């Protein structure tokens, strides 16, 4: 094979070899994530594992297939002792001279990526499932096994899926896997059980035996002694004297001699040093290391961790594109199906040929939708979309229609309105939406963009839609 050619750019180093371009990353700051699209694979120089984890997460966690599906190789002399990281990358080379050994893997990956079709599913869960099964397909991986992982807030990582989530949202992977299983894409086997904080769903919990009255863990325990001759019963403390380590009865002053004969120890008692409550049964509390909540273990959420195995249906969903039927957002009140929208658009263009009126189609795009949806979960996500639709609905005429292009893109018609006014309405509407979000979802920063395209009856409807959404999808 030929010689590797190194191009130093300020975005990292490009290595060209056998017609393939490798992006060589040395520093986190040198990574421009969009740049990954322009290369066949990524090689990360491994000096510090934390920074490697960060770069890998940013690539695998990206929403664009030509970023998250890109092969990643680590350049390291030693093997990496991190099963999760190992599962996320595609291989290791000891130095850059070994680039040749990667070519076959890269070409295999490219071939597999070409098999894939990406259906534009609306729901966040479907997007995540698509990411997961397409990654599995390109890596020729048939199973998704939980890996005990100290960096995971639920103690187990499913690397290809968990990489999409920040620590606080990681519990959402269990929900997504449940959906994938119920869709028949996976079958599962029991692996383990975990307990999650009922406040924040973290599994980083500290368990302690506590006083049932005040929940303090500051307690001391003592044997109860029953002195048979006089019937005195009390903690061993009562029987201790100051002179020797023998035990004397505080009631009758006799020395205890022989357990079972003149005394016995029928039970153990605990005393709380905080509230002086006495008891025999501790409560067990779990303190959440993430949010600080300290509750009885009975209040924890119990979840099952399973091993997942791709089914035939799962494999073909990766290739043909996966659109979930149950979790989609068709049923949001006030919207119509995208296909119906297209049909109506076609008729409107036909109508304009005769009337010379001025009509528009508009799009609202949620720029950071995957981040937003991962924070919300599917129920809140639906709630958010419903709110958005009702605001939009109240700002347009009843003859106009709304539809989803994807979960991040809403499309609507504004017929018989000059383009300028349409733009103005849209601007106001987005401001209203931002206000709505700010008031209902605290701490949630949703970024909107919008675009208006005036209908031109010389162009087919497909061209209008492409023009409208080209910047967004």
């Amino acid at each position: 094979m030929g010689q590797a050619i190194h191009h130093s750019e300020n975005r990292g180093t490009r290595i060209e070899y056998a017609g393939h371009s490798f992006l060589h990353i040395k520093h986190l700051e040198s990574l421009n994530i969009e740049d990954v699209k322009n290369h066949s694979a990524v090689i990360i120089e491994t000096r510090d594992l934390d920074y490697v984890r960060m770069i890998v997460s940013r690539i695998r966690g990206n929403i664009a297939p030509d970023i998250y599906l890109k092969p990643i190789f680590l350049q390291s002399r030693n093997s990496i002792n991190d099963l999760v990281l190992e599962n996320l990358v595609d291989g290791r080379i000891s130095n850059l001279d070994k680039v040749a050994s990667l070519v076959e893997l890269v070409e295999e990956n490219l071939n597999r990526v070409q098999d894939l079709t990406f259906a534009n599913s609306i729901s966040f869960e479907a997007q995540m499932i698509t990411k997961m099964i397409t990654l599995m397909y390109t890596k020729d991986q048939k199973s998704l096994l939980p890996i005990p992982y100290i960096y995971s807030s639920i103690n187990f990582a499913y690397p290809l899926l968990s990489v999409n989530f920040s620590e606080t949202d990681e519990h959402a992977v269990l929900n997504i896997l449940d959906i994938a299983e119920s869709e028949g894409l996976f079958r599962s086997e029991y692996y383990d059980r975990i307990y999650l904080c009922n406040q924040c769903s973290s599994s980083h919990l500290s368990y302690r035996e506590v006083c049932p009255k005040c929940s303090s863990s500051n307690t001391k325990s003592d044997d109860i002694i029953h002195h048979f001759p006089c019937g005195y019963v009390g903690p061993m403390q009562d029987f201790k004297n100051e002179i020797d380590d023998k035990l004397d009865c505080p009631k009758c002053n006799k020395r205890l001699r022989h357990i079972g004969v003149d005394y016995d120890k029928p039970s153990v008692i605990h005393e709380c040093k905080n509230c002086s409550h006495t008891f025999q049964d501790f409560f067990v509390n779990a303190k959440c290391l993430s949010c600080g909540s300290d509750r009885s273990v009975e209040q924890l959420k119990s979840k099952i961790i399973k091993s997942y195995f791709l089914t035939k249906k799962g494999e073909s969903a990766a290739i043909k594109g996966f659109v979930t039927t149950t979790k989609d957002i068709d049923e949001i009140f006030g919207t119509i199906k995208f296909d119906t929208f297209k049909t109506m658009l076609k008729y409107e263009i036909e109508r304009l040929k005769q009337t010379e009126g001025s009509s528009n189609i508009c799009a609202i795009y949620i720029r950071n939708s995957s981040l937003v949806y991962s924070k919300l979960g599917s129920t809140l996500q639906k709630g958010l979309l419903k709110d958005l639709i009702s605001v939009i609905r109240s700002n347009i005429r009843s003859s106009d229609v709304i539809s989803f292009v994807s979960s991040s893109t809403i499309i609507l018609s504004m017929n018989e309105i000059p383009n300028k006014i349409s733009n103005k309405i849209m601007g106001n509407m987005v401001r209203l939406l931002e206000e709505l979000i700010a008031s209902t979802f605290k701490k949630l920063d949703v970024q909107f963009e919008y675009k208006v395209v005036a209908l031109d009856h010389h162009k087919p409807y497909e061209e209008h839609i492409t023009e409208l959404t080209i910047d967004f999808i």
Partner: protein
Amino acid sequence: MIDKIIDNYLRFLSTLTPADFLEFFWFFLIFEFFRYFLVEFIVLILTEVKKVTSRKQRASASAELFFENPLVSILIPGKNEGKHLYKLVNSLSEQTYKNIEIIVVDDGSDDDTPAIGRMLEKAGLIDVFLRNEVRGGKASGANLALRYSKGKYIIHLDADCSYDFDAIENILIPFYMELGVGGVGGNVNVRNYKHSLVTTLQGVEYYNAITIGRKVTSYLGIYRVISGAFGAFRADVIKSIGGWDIGPGLDGDITVKIRKKGYKIRFAADAHCLTSVPNTFKKLVKQRLRWDKSLIRFRLRKHNDVFKVQASFRLLDFFSAFENFFYNVVLNFKWYIYLTIMLTFYRPLFINVFITNVLLYTIMNYIKFLLFSLFRDRSHSSVSYFLIYLPCMVLYFGLFLRAVRTIAYLQEIFFKMSYKDTWNPRKTSIHAEYLRL
């Protein structure tokens, strides 16, 4: 035959002179009529008078109690009592006196008591639930509860009893009526008196012995048994005597120990408690044998020092013990002497004397029951229900209980049988016997 007996009897009555009457019925007149009718009647009237004159004092005692509002520890030791616990703790939450802590000790139960107890503890209905895996006996259970009590007053309850809503308040008031009260006994009556003849008769017996009898002994200052079913103690006093000693008869024992310390014992007739009594004669015999044996054990053995003239001698303690001993043990045997005399010297008249005795006792029972019921402040059972059963009381009290008592006394005096009672675990009774407790 019956005609002849009646004829004969009427002739006997018509010729009976007062001197003869005294000669034939000295036992009834001197011991029974005098003690259980005359003395009781007079004292009852005096108690009523005192009740009226001390009304103001009582009101201020009650006010003082609620002003101070001391924590009161309720101890409920027992074995296999779980089934009663929920009802009991629920009824305790209805009490007029609220500042209580409930401490339940499960003394080695082998049923679902531990689970029930833990559940009630978790639900906050019981403050402290303690379980001993191995049974230690009634005293050890009570002592464990006492060790972990925090109240100023201690109330000992039985799990299978039930209590009037103001019972706790009323049993506490005597502590605020006069100084130096160390313990107060509650008024225990029979809940299942309608169950069978044997429970009905015990209903009458409890009424006579407790509601009336203890009012009288309390007034006279010789009240001597605070029932385990319902008794209140000053915590400092009961802790200073080391709590309960090994039973049976630990209720009487602890009362004597408190008296010996120089404290007064009072009876609270208005602190009502209902208990379930044995519902067959067989069970009753078993219970009474245990009780009667403990009388010998505690009066004649453990606490015989109250009869001795020594530095700590107190007349009331002596009188209390003497009255108890005399009317139970001495008279029990004296009755046999009476029976022997009658059978030996008055043989031809024996049937007539017997009939007269039965009539005398029955008439006394009726008069007493009706007259004394005027002194009831409130009651759980109607007076009229018992009336038709009263004739049976002669047989129940005069023959049945006397026979049981005799057997018990003889067993205990000669064989110290109480130490072999499985009511206590063997490991503890060995020591009690050895130490002559």
